[in-house]
Structure formats: structure tokens, C-alpha cells
């Protein structure tokens, strides 16, 4: 295999108001023709910078390549003048971005934007270009390409846009495709479709792909080789098989172990790397991972390890040779970095009583469709449509489903943050839908929320101590020393230094902020906590820390959770029972294990199969859920899933299935459960 791209000792600096920062240092990696290389690493490790450096796009962001070479097909891109560089961009190498919605210019049609690229590089007529665009759109699996050609980005769904983006990147048959987290913003079902598309295209065109992801599952599924980055440096490079079989760097090992798999022991403590990625302007001496590494020695603290070759893999660690050989490397839990390993959760699962805390009856939440003036009220979005279920005391109820299926809405209505259109919500024997004003506010102390975006959920002008104090002041009228000690107690409980209560939210990392969010949520000793995508925005290693924390707190405080997430592994790991939502309906409710082992609803099955997994071979994932979730303003008749269901019958189209008990505690709304 020939080398397509060779990166040698690449360093990039950014000029910022606070001075120059070195974003990546001495990156060396290469991609062969037809190969798929994955770049993985935590957020902020420099993956995107690397990819933009390859395209020399950082020139436009005050960035500068300070060192190194970038050879594409033998040409050094680093020294190319801008006008020659343009010949490469789009033509020889192309890029697909994470957020397709914002990667397109919103005021031009999709077709125009793809066509523009073709005309720029291949000097063909408009007609010809248009034909090619339509072909490309067809190729990437967009139905009605002629019509889509004329559509604006805002008129298409995320999945469709990502396909269009891929079509655009392929428009001039590049040799190298760089995809920066191409599926992160998409639902698992769509993600699976896109990944498959990429693989097909690669085979067809013999593309080389540099895929950037923070999801090791994806890497496992599609990469030939994997490059692991940490804090601006490459720490390990190996073939996918080797890497998953035997990670060579403590960081890689940590990442791999942090991921809850679909077969991890539910409720057990997850492994997690302690701490979080250091910021670029306060990097530690020596090995950059040293502060978080359980195996760090004095040597590591003083001298940075070079990226050394071990056969056909490269590792930047002084001790990897010795470590990989040790017993605990692959299965040792004795080195878990969490100070006090506990098995509380196991205890808890025994003692769970089945008294319902929340009972929901025929709950509906309709939003009026705006902008239709005269016909207002006629058309509605059925965000939650006739949902009944209950949540037992001390249990964790997981909620999964594609985006737009109504999970968050259900959560909000449950807590009466929004009023239900219809139906009742009983909390501890009290009908919440009848409460108002002060009465409602005072029940609020028993139900708290952890938000997805920990940063946004704090008033940026408040010290975090004050934010945590807010509920205490509102409900318990705590003051002075009492308040103070309670805040400290809470911070300690979530594993933060109590002295930090004087800091502002922006001074914390994402994981720390989420801990603060949790501290605030548990301040009043609530009975119930709604965690809506509470860990989705976090890196896997941090995600594991938070999940552990949540479980630990549940044990200590006897909490009940509703846990909404689209990461199925995490939901499975933490939940006792799981509800699956589709288009405003609960289509299946089951205990965690049985849901994953024997999904009864085809939709559930499809979701589970879409999850990329490390432990599963590539070929296994043969079946994808096709198409996208329909609009909740005009849901399909009968079974709402029938448009995408592989087992659809005419009955499904006409008759709406009700939630039925299949086994004890296992309910599904399907005429023909699996």
C-alpha cells in the first residue's frame, strides 16, 4: 500500500489574546491509500486541529503550522501558497464535518453548493455539474435527488444533510476524505446508516479516510488503524485489532475500560480515568498524561516519552513495555482510581421496593404548530401522546428513543415544568397536574433535574456555591454557617473540593460542572431526580465518573432517577427499567436486561443493533433501521413505527397497537412482538 498522506512532526500554534498556545505538538501519522484511520481522544485533545491543519484551514483561525511537514501524494502542503492549496482542497482531499446543519451555507440550495465545488475544480458547464450533483445525491442514498437539489439546508433533516455533505465531499473524487465526527450529532440509527455509507463509498472509490471520533465503538467498527491523541500529542498508534486486543498506553487502556458495554455488569462501578484533560496553557511537565496516570513514576513526571515503535504500533509511554505484560493490564480492577470502591448499588438493587413514586396516566402534551394564524389550534405537534407508566421508588427508569421522540418533553411534563395537555401525573400520591403556584413550587423540592448542558444550567454570574445554595435558600431558608456547611458537605459528596464554592462556572471542566449540577440537585434531599442527557455531553472517561457518582448517590440517599440518554450503553448500565419512546409514544417498557436480551418491539431491536460496539465484529451489524423519524405533527396512522418497520403488515398500518404485558414487567406496543 502506498502512502497517501504523511504527517511528520507537525506542530500548530494559535495566536490568542492571551498569547500563543501550542495546540498540537509533533504529530506524526500516515495514511495509506484506501485505508481508514481513526483519530480518537477526549475532547480538546487536538483532533480537529490536526484535521484542519491537514487542509491548512487553521490559517484562517489565527493558527499557524510552526513545524513539520504534511506530504499529500508527495507534495508538501505546509509550504504551498494559498492559490495552489485551493487545487488540493476539495479536489484531492475533502472534509465532512460534525454538524451538517451548520456546515452548509443556509441561504443557498444544497444543489448549488455541491455544484459550486464541481465548477470550481473541474471547469465543467453548469448543466453537466448539475447532472453530476444529482448522481452524487442518488449515490449517497438521498431519495428524490432532483427535488432535493433545490432544497435549502434548513429544509432537510440532519441525516439527509450529512449524506449531502458526503456527496459534496466526494464531488471531485478526492483521494483523502477527512471526516470530523461525522455522526456525533446524529441519532444512533442514522449514525449507523452514515457509517455504512462511508464504508461502501470507500470500497467503491478506494478512498482513504481519516475519521475523527471520540466514540471508540465507531473506531472499532470502521478503522483499519487507530491513532490516539491526548492533549495535543499522539500517544498511541496501532491497527484497530491490536489496539482493542491490547491497548499499549495507559490512556488508551483507560478509555477502553471507561466505556460501558452492552454486556457489562449492570449497576457495577465503571472504570474511569481520574481527573480531566489539562488545558493547553497549563500542561504538566513530562508526560502529559502523567497527572491522570495510575502508573506514573518520577521519570514520567520529568521527561516526556517519545512516540516509540513497537513492531507495527507506536506508543508514547516510558512504561508501556512493562505494563502491558502485567496481569492487571487487561482485567485488573484493583487499580481502579476511584478511592473507595463500593458495591452499594448491588445492595440497592436487592432492596428496591416496588411502590410507585410516579404514576402517569394517559399523559399528553401537544404543542400548537406556530405560524398558521387562522388555523391555529388545528395542527399540533404531538410531542407526548397518551403515555402511561410508573416509576418505582428507588429505581432508575431509563428512557431512550431517537431525537424528537418526546423524551425531554415527557420529563418536563413529569416535573410540571410544563403543563400537560391531558392526563395525570401522580407523585407520591399527589396529583401534580392539579397543583399550582406555591404548592407546586414546594413539591419541587422533592423532584430535581440534572441538565444536559452543565454550563448552561448555571448562571454565569453566580459563584457555584451560590448556585448550589439557591434551592436551600428557597425551600429551607438556610442561612450563614448552616448554609455554608451544607454547601461544603454537598461539594464533598460529589467529589469536589469544598473550597471551590467561590469559583465561577467557567472555571470548571465539563465533568466538574456536571458534578456541581448534581450537588445542586441533591441539595434538598429530593426523592426524585430527572437526568435528561446528563452525561451525553461528556467524554467517555468523565461520563463514567458521573455515572458512578449517580449510582453511588442513589445508594446513599435512596434516590429515584429518570435517566434520559441516547447512549444506549450508559442507559443500560444505570437503569433498572427502560422505556423506549417513538414519536411521542412509549413503545416498550422492560427491565434493563430483558430489554437488551429480548427486545420485543422491532424499534427497540433496531436501536440496539445500531449501537457501534467494540466487542462486536463488523459484519454482525447487517441490519439497519432505514429512513428517519417522521414529523410529530402528522404521525403515521396505526402503529407509528410502521413506515420504518421491517415486519410491517397491513394491520400495523391501520390499527394502533396498545402497550401490552408480554412477560412480568415487560410491556410492548406491537401487534407482532418479536
Amino acid at each position: 500500500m502506498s502512502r497517501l498522506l504523511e504527517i511528520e512532526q507537525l506542530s500548530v500554534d494559535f495566536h490568542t489574546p492571551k498569547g500563543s498556545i501550542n495546540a498540537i505538538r509533533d504529530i506524526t501519522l500516515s495514511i495509506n491509500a484506501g485505508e481508514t484511520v481513526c483519530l480518537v481522544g477526549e475532547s480538546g485533545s487536538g483532533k480537529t486541529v490536526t484535521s484542519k491543519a491537514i487542509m491548512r484551514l487553521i490559517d484562517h483561525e489565527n493558527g499557524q503550522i510552526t513545524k513539520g511537514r504534511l506530504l499529500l501524494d508527495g507534495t508538501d502542503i505546509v509550504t504551498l501558497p494559498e492559490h495552489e492549496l485551493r487545487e488540493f482542497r476539495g479536489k484531492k482531499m475533502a472534509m465532512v464535518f460534525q454538524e451538517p446543519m451548520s456546515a452548509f451555507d443556509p441561504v443557498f440550495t444544497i444543489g448549488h453548493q455541491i455544484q459550486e465545488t464541481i465548477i470550481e475544480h473541474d471547469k465543467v458547464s453548469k448543466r453537466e455539474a448539475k447532472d453530476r450533483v444529482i448522481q452524487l445525491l442518488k449515490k449517497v442514498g438521498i431519495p428524490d435527488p432532483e427535488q432535493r437539489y433545490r432544497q435549502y439546508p434548513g429544509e432537510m433533516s440532519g441525516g439527509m444533510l450529512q449524506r449531502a455533505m458526503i456527496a459534496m465531499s466526494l464531488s471531485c473524487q478526492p483521494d483523502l476524505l477527512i471526516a470530523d465526527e461525522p455522526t456525533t450529532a446524529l441519532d444512533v440509527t442514522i449514525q449507523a446508516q452514515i457509517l455504512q455509507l462511508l464504508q461502501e463509498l470507500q470500497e467503491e472509490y478506494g478512498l482513504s479516510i481519516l475519521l475523527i471520533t471520540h466514540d471508540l465503538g465507531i473506531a472499532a467498527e470502521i478503522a483499519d488503524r487507530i491513532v490516539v491523541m491526548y492533549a495535543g500529542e499522539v500517544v498511541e498508534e496501532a491497527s484497530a485489532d491490536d489496539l482493542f486486543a491490547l491497548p499499549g498506553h495507559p490512556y488508551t487502556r483507560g478509555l477502553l475500560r471507561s466505556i460501558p458495554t452492552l454486556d457489562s455488569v449492570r449497576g457495577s462501578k465503571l472504570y474511569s480515568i481520574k481527573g480531566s484533560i489539562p488545558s493547553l496553557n497549563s500542561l504538566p511537565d513530562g508526560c502529559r498524561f502523567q497527572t491522570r496516570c495510575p502508573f506514573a513514576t518520577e521519570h514520567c513526571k520529568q521527561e516526556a516519552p517519545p512516540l516509540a515503535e513497537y513492531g507495527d504500533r507506536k506508543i508514547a509511554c516510558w512504561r508501556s513495555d512493562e505494563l502491558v505484560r502485567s496481569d492487571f493490564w487487561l482485567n485488573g480492577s484493583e487499580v481502579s482510581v476511584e478511592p473507595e470502591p463500593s458495591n452499594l448499588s448491588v445492595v440497592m438493587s436487592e432492596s428496591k421496593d416496588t411502590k410507585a413514586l410516579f404514576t402517569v396516566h394517559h399523559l399528553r402534551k401537544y404543542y400548537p404548530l406556530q405560524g398558521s394564524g387562522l388555523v391555529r389550534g388545528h395542527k399540533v405537534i404531538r410531542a407526548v401522546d397518551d403515555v402511561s407508566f410508573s416509576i418505582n421508588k428507588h429505581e432508575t427508569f431509563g428512557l431512550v428513543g431517537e431525537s424528537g421522540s418526546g423524551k425531554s418533553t415527557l420529563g418536563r411534563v413529569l416535573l410540571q415544568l410544563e403543563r400537560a395537555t391531558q392526563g395525570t401525573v401522580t407523585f407520591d400520591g399527589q396529583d401534580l397536574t392539579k397543583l399550582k403556584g406555591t404548592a407546586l413550587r414546594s413539591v419541587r423540592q422533592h423532584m430535581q433535574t440534572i441538565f444536559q448542558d452543565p454550563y448552561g444550567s448555571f448562571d454565569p454570574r453566580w459563584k457555584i456555591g451560590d448556585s448550589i445554595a439557591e434551592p436551600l435558600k428557597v425551600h429551607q431558608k438556610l442561612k450563614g454557617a448552616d448554609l455554608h456547611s451544607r454547601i461544603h458537605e454537598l461539594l464533598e459528596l460529589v467529589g469536589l473540593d469544598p473550597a471551590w464554592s467561590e469559583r465561577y462556572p467557567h472555571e470548571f471542566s465539563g465533568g466538574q460542572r456536571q458534578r456541581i449540577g448534581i450537588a445542586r440537585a441533591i441539595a434538598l434531599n429530593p426523592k426524585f431526580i430527572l437526568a435528561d442527557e446528563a452525561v451525553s455531553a461528556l467524554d467517555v472517561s468523565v461520563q463514567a465518573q458521573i455515572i458512578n457518582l449517580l449510582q453511588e448517590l442513589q445508594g446513599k440517599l435512596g434516590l429515584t432517577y429518570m435517566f434520559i440518554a441516547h447512549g444506549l450503553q450508559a442507559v443500560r448500565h444505570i437503569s433498572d427499567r427502560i422505556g423506549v419512546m417513538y414519536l411521542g409514544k412509549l413503545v416498550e417498557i422492560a427491565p434493563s436486561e430483558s430489554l437488551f436480551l429480548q427486545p420485543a418491539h422491532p424499534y427497540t431491536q433496531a436501536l440496539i443493533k445500531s449501537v457501534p460496539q467494540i466487542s462486536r465484529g463488523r459484519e454482525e451489524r447487517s441490519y439497519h433501521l432505514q429512513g428517519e423519524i417522521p414529523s410529530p405533527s402528522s404521525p403515521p396512522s396505526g402503529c407509528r413505527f410502521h413506515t420504518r418497520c421491517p415486519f410491517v403488515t397491513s394491520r400495523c398500518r391501520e390499527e394502533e397497537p396498545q402497550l401490552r404485558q408480554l412477560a412480568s414487567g415487560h410491556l410492548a406496543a406491537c401487534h407482532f412482538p418479536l
Partner: protein
Amino acid sequence: MREEAVSSKTLWRTRKTVSPPAIRQKGKFTVSSLFLYGAALLILFTLTCAVVPGWIAPYSPTEMLTDRILQPPSAAHLFGTDYFGRDIFSVVVHGSRDSLFIGFASVLVGGLIGGSIGALSGYAGGWIDTLIMRLNDILMTIPGILLALAIASALGPSLFNIVLAVAVSSIPGYARVMRAQVMSITSRTFVKAAASIGASPIQIFWKHVLPNSLSPLLVMGAIGIGTSILTGSGLSFLGLGVLREVPDWGTLLSQGRGYLTVAWWICTFPGLAITAFVLSVNIIGDRLRDHLDPKNLTQR
């Protein structure tokens, strides 16, 4: 209608795309930073003039050296003398007090009233919002200067009336900005977080919404100081200026404008004073805007 879905996506995105928070390159010592400091100094100087004019002005602003009228700028009279024989520099220095008063007081009054109704409107929503916004629309359709003109011409020229006129005409602008900001803050997660904790709407408003909504109003107010001075001088031009012992810049400018061909310095210096001050205020306001921009706040 897809807002909710989109916003949860956007949150997801804000983490993932390391969109470098609007990096504004700042060299060690650029021309624009020179001007920023210049502007700050000028404002400081003007404030000093307004507070202790006697320290700066070489002459009394009311002293009429009738044997030295219409003298061009010289060492003795930096800005020359006017048709009364007053030292223009001294008049400008002393006149800063009233000018600044017009600027600050009308911003204060207009901003306070406009800000309050905007906040009420944005926070209360519903029919209150509709009502206030319609009223605001009504004010908007009447160009500010006409409103000011009507009020000033009806009430007669006095410093207070000018302030009132300018303030009233600026209300709709403040109200609109405040309303939009309050609405956007109200939709932020931390406000929902406070609500979910059980804080009452009034508590939420005072503790979260208001403090976070003030910065655009501040920026607008900073810039509004300049605009008010300009509107005030426009009123002087239309013959509704105030007559005080020491004229404010606008009055000075508008009264000296007839001398432009024979004694250019009379209206040039107060004109420059207005322009330079408004310019400085705008430069500072712009910078303030960059700093307090809610976008910069969220993504810091």
C-alpha cells in the same frame, strides 16, 4: 417549532465544535488599541471638565471680553473667542457639564423606563407583552426627533425638558432590546434550572434574568449617551435649545454656526467636542459590546 429539538442539538454541538470564541486578535500595541485608550482618556478628561471645570478652564466661561470678540485661536485663547468675547475653550470646558447631563440623564431616564417596560414585557409575556409591544410600536412609528420636538416645543426649552424629550424618544429602543434580551435569557437553561428548583418567578427574575439581561442595555446606554447629546443638539438647531449661563455644546454649536464663514472656530470646537466625545463613547460602547456580548458569555 423545532426549536427544542434544535437547541438540544446545539448544546451538543457547543461542546463538540471547538468554535474558538470569536478570537479577536490583539497585537501588542495596535492603532485601534491606541484609539481605545485615547477614547477612554478623552471621556475621562470630559468627565473631569464636567466635575471640576474650574481646574481646567483658563477663563471664566461667562466672562465677556468685549474688546476681544471673534479672535482666532491663539496662545491666550486656545480655541479663540466667540462673539461675546468669551474664551471658547473655557466655555466648552464648562459646557461639558450640561452636555453630559443631557447625555447621561436622558439615558438614565430613557433606559430605566424603557428597560423596565421591556423587561416586564419580555418576562410577563402573553397579553401584557402584546399590549406593551403595540404601545412600543406606536412610539416607534413616530421618529424619535419628532417626538422630542413635540415634547420640547410644547414644554418649552429647559434642560429638564430636553432631557425628558430625548429620554421619551429613546424609550422604545431600550424596551425592544431589553425585551429581546430578557426573552433570550428566560429561555436559557439556568433559568429553567432555577424554576425546576422551585424558585418563584419573581425571585428568578431578580436574581437571574435581570442581572444577565443588563449588559446589552448597558452597551446601548453607553452609546445612547452620544446619541442623546446629538438629539439634544438637533433640538438646539431647531430652535429649542436651552439658554443657560454657560451653554451646552449643542447650543454653542448651533448658535455659532452662523459664524462659520467669518469665525470658523466658534462652531468648530464645540462641534469637535461633540463629535470627539460621541466618538469616544461609541468606541468604548463597541468595545463594551464585544466584552459583554452574550455570545461571548456562553462560550467563554
